[in-house]
């Protein structure tokens, strides 16, 4: 399956062009920057560390921004993965990144977004949601940075 992906037309086109790989990696990084900044702003607000006196509803933008950035990163990430599918899949940091990513997405959809968009939860719950969400998204980014060690 993985070698089949790697042998596909899209994957070989990407693998053969370092400019195309670089461009996809650059757009992947723009998406990741969106996720990171949106998680920092909304996470710190849930933690009560910034704009504590402002209604949580003001964080609707950053809460949605995480999803937008994630979309950009996932599309470019899948394309980058396809070019070297077997070696990525076997990489421990890649596996860790996917594990943290899956956890972050679940936590985001189940708790983080509702906490902000529907202003649900107790103050303690908000703090816990903010801390977990921020840690998970920054964890995904850190694992991605660690992947660079094996480029």
């Amino acid at each position, binding site marked *: 399956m993985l070698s089949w992906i790697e042998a596909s037309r899209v994957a070989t086109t990407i693998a053969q062009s*370092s*400019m195309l*790989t*670089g*461009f996809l*990696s*650059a*757009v992947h*990084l*723009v998406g*990741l*920057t*969106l*996720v*990171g*900044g*949106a998680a*920092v*702003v909304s996470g*710190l607000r849930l933690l009560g560390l*910034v*704009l504590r006196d*402002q*209604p949580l*509803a*003001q*964080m609707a*933008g*950053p809460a949605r*921004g995480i999803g937008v950035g994630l979309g950009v990163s996932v599309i470019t990430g899948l394309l980058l993965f396809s070019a070297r599918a077997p070696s990525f899949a076997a990489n421990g940091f890649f596996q860790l990144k996917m594990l943290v990513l899956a956890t972050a997405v679940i936590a985001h959809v189940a708790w983080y977004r509702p906490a902000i968009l529907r202003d649900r939860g107790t103050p303690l719950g908000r703090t816990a949601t903010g801390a977990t969400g921020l840690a998970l998204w*920054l964890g995904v*980014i*850190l694992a*991605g*940075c*660690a992947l*660079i*060690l094996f*480029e």
Partner: protein
Amino acid sequence: MSASLLSVAEWLERTQVAVLVRESFWGFQVVVAVHIFGLAWSAGTVLWFDLRLLGLSMQGVPVSTVYRRIMPWAFAGFFVMFTSGGALLAGFATAAYGNLFFRLKAAALLLAGLNALVYHLVTERHIAGWDTAARPPLVARLAGLVSILLWTGVVLAGRMMSYTMF
């Protein structure tokens, strides 16, 4: 001018930091990882102030409040990004000097700094009139838009350097 810039680049590459980045086994990759983390943190955070200037997010919060509360967190990330970026640049200064994407990135960074300077020195002087406006005036919105475009350029060109310099 360019001859003197090149000699600065050659001098940078002889500094201790530069040698460490180039010659230690993990040094380079670790500094790149730290640089990217600092970037996602700082440029990503600045984006939300820019979006507030554009009137696209946090419309109910005064512009000055968003700046005061959010920017200190961005500055922390900038510190990480600029120190790690400085070390990387020192290590490969002459290669960067001749690289098209480095030149684009340096130009975008300079213009982003200039844009911020103009905002603080000129546009912000009249902030009392639109601080609480959901949609700030055109000059302020332009400052936000230009900042987003330039920072996107910095990120794109910066990543392209990794694929074109070595």
